[in-house]
């Protein structure tokens, strides 16, 4: 998938490759010209990726090559052992989690899991979680609390699964109970929004003490398409809706709704995986260090106050 804004860059990069070929044939020396074009390309790249529109971000966040929760669990942590099941009804593959470690620090980690291909997406339900998935997350959080392990959650979902069975089994209750659980949990919680932060289905595991957002991820109360359908009765106006919804890290950070933006390699996390993993790991450890300085009471108060002051209203 190529964003519209990426096209000039990709064309230029193609041209450079052609020139390099010509150059290598040895007939003409184009090395100076190539260098100049490469510099141009770097500038263009920076220019493009520094000026992505909210809708570009939406597309980046949904990019089929974008790194998923599983990628981070594997690469950021020294070991990860998946734990299955909600202990009530099922094991929802759209939400994965388990024990993990970095050095001597044990974590409980979990996240929405999108598939890498169609087959996996069918199994993972495109990262749309059923109540069982949220209840599995809740179970893992309670286990973390029992042993004092910090929780790290990775957010990447279009939204909670809107299916018959999901509603029957109390999607609304599962989300609410998780939010309350996180609000009261006795261990630090770090949330990393790595792709799509889709409304309540995201929030059900995103109510952390520290909310970090990858530069090209989004967080929104409603999908841009859904918003456009409601406001303009036209889902194709999603890009306008993306502008309106304030779903970028930049907007959210400015408004105190998230705590930090983790920069991505130019072109997105998948363009330099190792660099991305390192940035996420560094951010997790740094934020954990900050939270671990708190006493339990301070942590609970910090968390309460953090959310307590979120909101925008006037008071006479």
């Amino acid at each position, binding site marked *: 998938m190529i964003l519209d804004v990426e096209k000039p860059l990709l064309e230029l990069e193609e041209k450079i490759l052609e020139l390099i070929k010509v150059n290598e044939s040895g007939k003409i020396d184009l090395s100076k010209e190539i260098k100049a074009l490469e510099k141009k390309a770097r500038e263009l790249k920076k220019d493009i990726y520094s000026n992505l529109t909210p809708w570009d971000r939406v597309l980046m966040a949904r990019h089929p090559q974008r790194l998923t929760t599983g990628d981070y669990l594997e690469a950021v942590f020294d070991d990860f052992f998946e734990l299955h099941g909600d202990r009530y009804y099922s094991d929802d593959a759209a939400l994965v989690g388990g024990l993990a470690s970095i050095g001597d620090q044990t974590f409980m980690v979990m996240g929405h899991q999108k598939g890498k291909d169609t087959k996996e997406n069918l199994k993972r339900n495109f990262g749309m979680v059923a109540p069982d998935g949220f209840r599995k997350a809740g179970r893992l959080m309670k286990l973390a609390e029992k042993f004092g392990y910090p929780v790290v959650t990775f957010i990447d979902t279009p939204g909670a699964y809107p299916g018959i069975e999901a509603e029957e089994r109390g999607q609304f209750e599962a989300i609410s109970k998780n939010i309350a659980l996180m609000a009261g949990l006795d261990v630090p919680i770090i949330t990393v929004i790595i792709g799509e932060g889709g409304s309540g289905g995201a929030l059900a595991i995103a109510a952390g003490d520290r909310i970090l957002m990858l530069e090209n991820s989004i967080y929104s109360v409603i999908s841009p398409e859904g918003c456009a359908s409601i406001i303009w009765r036209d889902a194709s106006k999603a890009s306008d809706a993306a502008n*309106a919804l304030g779903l970028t890290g930049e907007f959210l950070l400015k408004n105190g709704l998230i705590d930090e933006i983790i920069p991505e390699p130019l072109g997105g996390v998948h363009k330099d995986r190792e660099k991305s993993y390192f940035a996420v790991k560094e951010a997790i450890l740094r934020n954990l260090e900050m939270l671990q300085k708190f006493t339990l009471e301070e942590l609970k108060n910090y968390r309460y106050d953090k959310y307590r002051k979120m909101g925008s209203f006037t008071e006479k």
Partner: protein
Amino acid sequence: MNAFFDKFKTNKPAAEAEGEGKVQAPKVPSDLWVKCSGCDTPIYRKVFEEKLKVCDKCGFHHKLSSYERISLLTEPGSFEELFTEILPADPLNFGEEYMTKLAADQKKTNLNDAVLTGKAKVGEHNVALGFMDFFFRGGSMGSVVGEKITRILEYGADNRLPVIIATCSGGARMQEGVFSLMQLVKTNAAINRLGEAGVPYIVIMTDPTTAGVAASFAAIGDVILAEPGAIIGFSGRRVIEQTIRQKLPPDFQSAEFYQKHGFIDKVVHRRMMKKTLVRILNFFNPKAKKTEDVVAEPEKQTVEV
């Protein structure tokens, strides 16, 4: 206007009630008949209101305003509004059109936003209250609703007053983006604190209670009641039908459906709601209960058959 409607006026200080219109009753249209939204039967308006806007024929519970719910559930004259001065903003700059809609709904409902909060007596019990109003932007939860719900929960915790919230909402307010979404956390965190203070929290789900409000303070009451036929759930019927590409059964996501599925303690007819609240409050504060509540209890029940 019949007795039922008159009542809530007496809940407001006379000066205000006669005042600038902000706190006055919604205008009652002059037509003598209304049509039931459940079965299309025409109902004589006086009867409709005497029956608490419940259709005798099909049982449909029509929506009530926040003020009507005060009349329905609290002792006459006991309601005292709290947190009146909080007004909605436009943090995402949705602009003129949105603000105009807010202003229109403020006028229509005599509310600043989609919830009315305060304290009152229910039977002998002093309680803190939040009554949502669908007629204000579909009861959508933005920062004002989140803030007022949170404040009334904190008020209940600080003053050891049971908190009763009647929910009625299509969900989070889109126009406030993630500000809206975060209200889910704020309210639920306040519910935790209420619980830690050992103060009960009772929810009454009314039609509709969906999406963001269902998925936050509606879902986790110590006791959860619902009005018959109220639509409850996370995802909307249309979205689900699009997902599964088939029609849903008519009772899907109804209060009765969710009682059957284990998420609601009891579906209670509007007529019995106040009595039911008093019974429940009696358990939580037996000292305040009157002997006749129990002795003369006409609704005393054994297990439902």
